[in-house]
């Protein structure tokens, strides 16, 4: 089709998932999914950590804040942690974090903790596809956009002040209400 006048249609939105995978189980499983040529949605971007115990809740919040629509944490099955029980420590944090996130308006489906062993390449595929579907249904989280929205009120006033001060450079009253209030009756 030859339609140069039409701007290209905006690509359909798909979620962005940041995944923190432990080196020994889930990262290896993701490698296995690759070696097995399993196909899954390209929405996930994996960060390798040595253990799910290393997943600092700050990382999760940072990922959401930077624009991730979901965060996936993958660790070894209970009892299988390469570091004995790092995964339990993540699990314990996770319960508290999910409650806190719910109170901050982030539904539980956006942050997911999964135990995936090194042999479960299929499970990597299933979890990523499933999470992609779920997030697709939830729609964008778009925290950067929300931050910009929130800050628009500041930017607006700052811009107004800027122009006002430009108009009246000397000893001006940039702020009207007090002037009105102090006027004698």
């Amino acid at each position, binding site marked *: 089709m030859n339609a140069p006048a039409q701007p*290209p249609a905006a*690509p*359909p939105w*798909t979620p*962005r998932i*940041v995944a923190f995978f432990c*080196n*020994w*189980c889930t*990262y*290896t499983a*993701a*490698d296995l*999914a*690759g*070696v097995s*040529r*399993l*196909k*899954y*949605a*390209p*929405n996930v*971007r*994996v*960060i*390798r*950590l*040595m*253990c799910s*115990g*290393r*997943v*600092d*809740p*700050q*990382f999760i919040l*940072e*990922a959401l804040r*930077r*624009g*991730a629509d979901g965060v996936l944490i993958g660790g070894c099955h209970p*009892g*299988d942690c*390469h*570091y*004995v*029980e*790092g995964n339990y*420590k993540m699990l314990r*944090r996770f319960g508290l974090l999910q409650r806190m996130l719910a109170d901050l308006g982030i539904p539980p489906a956006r942050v997911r903790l999964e135990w995936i*062993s*090194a*042999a*479960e390449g299929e499970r990597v*595929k299933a979890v990523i*596809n499933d999470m*992609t*579907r779920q997030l*697709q249904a939830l729609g964008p989280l778009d925290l950067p956009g929300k931050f910009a929205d929130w800050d628009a009120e500041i930017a607006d006033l700052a811009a107004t002040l800027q122009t006002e001060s430009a108009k009246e450079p000397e000893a001006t009253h940039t702020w009207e209400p007090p002037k009105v209030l102090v006027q004698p009756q």
Partner: protein
Amino acid sequence: MVSLKPEIRIGFYVCHCGHNIASMVDCADVAAYVGQLPGVVLARDYKYMCSDPGQELIQKDIAEFGLNRVVVASCSPLLHEHTFRAAVAAGGLNPFLFHMVNIREHASWVHTDRAAATAKAKVLARAAIRRAALARELPQRQIPINPGVLVVGGGIAGIHAALTLAEAGKHVWLIEREASIGGHMAKFDKTFPTLDCAACILTPKMSAVGAHPNITLWSHSDVVQVDGYVGNYTVKVRRRPRYVNEELCTGCQECIGNCIYKEPKFPDEFNEGLGKRKPIHIPFPQATPQVVLIDPQVCLNFKRGVLTDRCKKTCVEACGDRKAIDFTQKEETKEIQVGAIIVATGFKPFDVRRVPQYGYGTYPNVYTALEVERLVNASGPTAGEIVLRDGRRPSAIAIIHCVGSRDKKTNRWCSRVCCMYSMKLAHLLKEHSGAELYNFYIDIRAPGKGYEEFYDKLNEEGVHFIRGRVGEVTDWAMIPEEEGKLVIRVEDTLAGVVRRIPVDMVVLATGLEPHADAQAVRRLFNMSCGTEGFFLERHPKLAPVSTFTDGVYIAGCCQGPRDIPDTVAQAGAAAAEALALIDRGHILQEPNTAHVLADCSGCKSCLPLCPYTAIGFDEATHQAVINEALCKGCGTCVAACPSGSIGQHLFEDDEVFSEIEGLLTADPEPTPALAATP
């Protein structure tokens, strides 16, 4: 945006990996994109980065362009990180100024849209570039290695691995659960395809193990605990009592003849219950160690395993002043120190009762393959005569392949050895009994040296091969000729007709499966299991005997079904890997340890989190201290330090934050239409 210091000079390389990456990721486009990112001095794409020319390219560029960071986008870091670190080090840079991006396993191989895969590769590369800018030089730490090796399991795999290491001058502890080493192979009559006698080739190796000065053989023992790490494992072994002192017993077996039980009465495990033994017994004539043992469950001097001292103890009298029999023997736990571990715990034959339509346990003349191995063996319960449980001699025998293999209701995998051992048994049974032999198979799998020729030979011998998985074994006769017989009902899929074949004996070619306690063993050694329960190798092609735990290797059927030649080859490979590890004398440890910063407040939150007790508390400074020799680098304490006062080399907070930021800043180009699911 991370502000890059002016001196950061990153070299970026994207690997085509032949077509593996290039077919799904536009490598030139990725290089062009990364080339314009801040801090990147050069960005190249190259066909094979891991090749020698690829590595030399990195070294040349480091010198020529003054690179001080290197990022390679190629395969998984688990595969080639060490390769590129070495290349970077050879180029004169600290190896930890290298960072790797996985665009093969995590992009090209798993996605189907080239534009989406390319976009993802760019994003992953951008994150790595940001992160690499923060990389710090780190020292390589060396740790000495204990030269001893633990071999777990005394089957042919364990025996071969132990002997190989012992011959190389290393001390080996060989731990076997049963009373004798030998494993399943010791029970076999002949071996395919050469038909040499299993005992004849195995026994000399067993004796060599028993006699070798470098091998400490502990049979009737279990590994109960493994601590430590590569090069320095501390292993606890439980030695169960045999009620016979191993040092004093000479293996004369006079005690057995003089046991209060005049006749063998109890099912003999070695002969699969087809023969009988006494409470005091030796598993089989060539058992190693040549030491008798007492079964406290049936010995009169015990009651249900508890010593009662009610027997006349004729065995003790027979032993005389050798005084080897010791009813007071207790279980002991011993501790050993080793540098490497080879796990060769073998397999368990499939329990044929799980396939009830074949009538095992219902019809006495249905046998498992292992029972038939003993039946045809000259030292077996019938001295090699093919006599059925009802005393008859068979004139027609059916061998049913794939019992507990290639079946999603039981085990879905092919057990690899059953076709060949079924043919071997067909040959032996025909040779011993002259009966008509029918093999019922789904597919004949004979991929080995001389295996197809063996199949040819069986065809020449007149053994029938009927392609069809047997529907049922029944004693219900439809025609007079079937009376008193076991009838095989099967579709002869090549002829396309359903057939009923009356036979006298049915042999079930049982598949191989993991031991029932494979999960417990896996946890003991910190290994992984595949979905089917066999131990998982580090890489199916390139690291087939290594596991994900450094210093722990696997050999034999515990990793998956395989035949004797493959098992021996793998055992040799495992021994060689262990040797390569311990002979080096030291290991380089990944410097991903945690470290306490000067601002620690001494809150002690991290102390209970360390599973290795690597974190201590310095009472003088009131701060936590991390013993880097004990730290394994999980980073749990780092994530949990409430004041951010613990760092982790290679995984510092700012490095991870920069990677997150790199992954999520606006996409490098209009996002192509990504399919939500492929």
